[in-house]
């Protein structure tokens, strides 16, 4: 066996174990009924379940081994996120372990990282990235939230919106304007002057509006400054976009499975409705969109995990986010149509998937925004 073959089989073994762990987890009680129960509550997820996820090692998939993580790639993370999305698991694994986790991991403050990352891996720390101030922003390059030197420390004031995983977070990696540049600063949720207000979304989960009012933190809480912030954010955003793609894939897969199953059993005019071509062809078109999403995800994750330049990561992330956002919203919307009136009821699950897909599609840039970004970045054909 060659080295690469050995690596490939070890890789698939790891992937198989993760798949199994997701299956076990789902069977242990995280199902759609639990997601329903937690709808419209604060923080909207269960900290005990979060601790279980950490036990499975999922919070540490992307954390290097020397920080206590598994040091694996987006492929492994994607397997877990796709699986959890199929049952609408409400815990903010992507927001905390990918978005916030990657921003922290890619920052330069070794001492602080050594404190935060192992705690994230162990499930003791739930971090959130608080970066966005305006809807539709794709890069967070110029925050208005300010950090000013104050008695040898820093004093922060301002507001962050659409903070995913922001309710129930133990702390925030906050982007701020500092000395005319940008800084990424760690702010514990318990610090005086920090508040997080629920921002309810269509899917029954709440993002947070995080307000900092004269919050004082030590200078040692600066995770990164200047261009290092931009680079860390870009990496975190693009990797998260790809993982949102995995979540959208899981979401549309389950909605389509439900629809196809329904088409086999629902009888009208004396026949299962799946025997009618108008519906059958619709289902095939949706299946095709799902498979395009899945093939793109696999190919892109493989390229990212092999190591790609930041520019290339951005192009690939936009490509995937555009496809999965478009396909995810379309498949889940048409799933309602296939079900007919029952699909429009709150009692039936399919609508939960539609609303989840809409929220995921909007997060970190929708299909249109990413096509525009792709157009601006992608190299021309030879």
């Amino acid at each position, binding site marked *: 066996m060659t080295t690469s073959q050995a690596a490939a089989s070890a890789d698939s073994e790891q992937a198989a174990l993760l798949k199994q762990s997701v299956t076990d987890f789902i069977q242990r009680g995280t199902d759609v009924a639990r997601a329903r129960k937690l709808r419209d509550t604060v923080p909207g997820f269960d900290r005990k379940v979060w601790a279980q996820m950490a036990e499975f090692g999922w919070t540490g998939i992307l954390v290097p081994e020397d920080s206590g993580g598994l040091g694996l790639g987006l492929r492994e993370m994607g397997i877990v996120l796709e699986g959890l999305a199929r049952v609408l698991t409400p815990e903010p694994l992507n927001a905390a372990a990918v978005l916030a986790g990657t921003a922290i991991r890619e920052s330069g403050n070794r001492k602080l990282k050594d404190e935060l990352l192992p705690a994230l891996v162990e499930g003791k720390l739930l971090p959130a990235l608080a970066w966005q101030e305006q809807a539709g922003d794709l890069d967070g390059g110029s925050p208005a939230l300010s950090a000013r030197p104050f008695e040898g420390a820093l004093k922060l004031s301002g507001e962050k919106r659409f903070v995913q995983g922001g309710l129930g977070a133990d702390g925030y990696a906050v982007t701020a304007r500092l000395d005319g540049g940008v800084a990424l600063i760690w702010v514990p949720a318990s610090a005086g002057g920090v508040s997080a207000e629920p921002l309810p979304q269509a899917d029954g989960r709440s993002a947070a509006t995080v307000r900092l009012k004269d919050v004082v933190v030590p200078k040692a809480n600066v995770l990164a400054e200047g261009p290092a912030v931009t680079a860390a954010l870009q990496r975190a955003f693009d990797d998260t976009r790809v993982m949102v793609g995995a979540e959208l894939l899981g979401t549309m897969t389950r909605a389509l499975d439900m629809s196809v199953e329904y088409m086999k059993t629902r009888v009208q005019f004396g*026949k299962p409705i799946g025997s009618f*071509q108008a519906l059958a062809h619709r289902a095939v078109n949706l299946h*095709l969109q799902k498979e395009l999403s899945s093939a793109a995800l696999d190919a892109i994750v493989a390229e990212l995990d092999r190591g790609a330049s930041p520019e290339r990561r951005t192009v690939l992330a936009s490509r995937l986010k*555009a496809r999965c956002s478009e396909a995810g919203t379309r498949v889940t919307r048409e799933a309602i149509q296939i079900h007919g009136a029952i699909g429009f009821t709150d009692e039936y699950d399919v609508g939960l998937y539609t609303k989840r897909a809409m929220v995921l599609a909007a997060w970190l840039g929708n299909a249109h925004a990413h*096509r525009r970004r792709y*157009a601006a970045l992608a190299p021309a054909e030879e």
Partner: protein
Amino acid sequence: MAESRDYNALNDDAFRQEVRVFFEKEYPAEFRYLLRKGRMSEMRGWWDAQYRRGWAGPNWPREHGGMGLDAGKMVIWLEEIERWGVARPPDQGVVQVGPIIMQYGTEAQKKYFLEPTLKGEFVWCQGYSEPNAGSDLASLRTEAVIDGDHFVITGQKIWTTMAHDASHIYTLVRTDKQAKKKQEGISFLLIDLNTPGILVRPIRNIAGHEEFCEVFFDKARVPRDRLVGKLNDGWTVAKALLGFERLSIGSPRRPQYALRRLEMIARAKGLFDDAGFVDRFIALKLDIEDLSSLYERYVAIAKRGEALGPDVSMLKIWAMDTWQSLTELLVETGAEEGVVPGEHDINGVNTDFLTPFYYARPGTIYGGSNEIQRNIMAKYVLGLPGH
């Protein structure tokens, strides 16, 4: 003909380099990125060059004068064809009927048909569709009645691509009208188009070209030894290559050519400043990118030597739909010039708007229409009940 070498023993890069050098040297520049099929009359020189090199049959085994490429090398071959924009000559003989004869033919058939097919002396067309058997192919009625050592054939084929350029036709004919299932009374015959009683009549298509034909059989006598496989087992023979056909028809190659053309024109016309155009262009570009990823999945399956499942139909659906959308946008991009046939000089870029549009149009019809592919997917992939 050059002596057959073991190309599979070469490493991939060395093989790719050799193919590349050959294409760059021998392939006629005026036919690069041709937006239609090549005709034998214009591509004879290219065919001969391939044959002299021993490269006329990349998919054929070496014992039959082919290159004997394994699936991995075959993919490289196809990639280089795509990269250099090498057009498809009338290659039905090499791609379709040759492998069928190798798999199901008698020794005598192999001896008689294979070498001239490789040389391009026998040019083949496919006689499947009939006036009342299109999507419902198994309803075909062209009849072959046994009379001594001959089949006597009466009936009509239609939409026979390039029959007027061909010397031979491979056909599905009805040999048992009493068969319980209509698929069961069909046989696979190889027929010389010079046989008395056969008339080929070209049909003008909406592009104004004569690419497809009607083929009439009026008591044409065909020797019985032209039967391939068993009598009444022609459906099995014809189905054998279907999976590969859908892989090749679902390749991103054709839409990629069209995209490249569209991009050149759009640049020449300054359309990348038009946000509306850019969004549509990028959506189509991503459709092709993601098709490529999907295609690679199936290529990997083929490379491993595994059979392709019915889900490969997806590739054809998406490749053809995307290809058509691109050529529609191309015509739109041309505005008034887009509907004027012939070449146009668009700020220094020469282009023909209508030919790609016409060329893409039947893509969703031939090789099993996209609706038929969706039926296949619904039944065999999604497991939906039949209608």
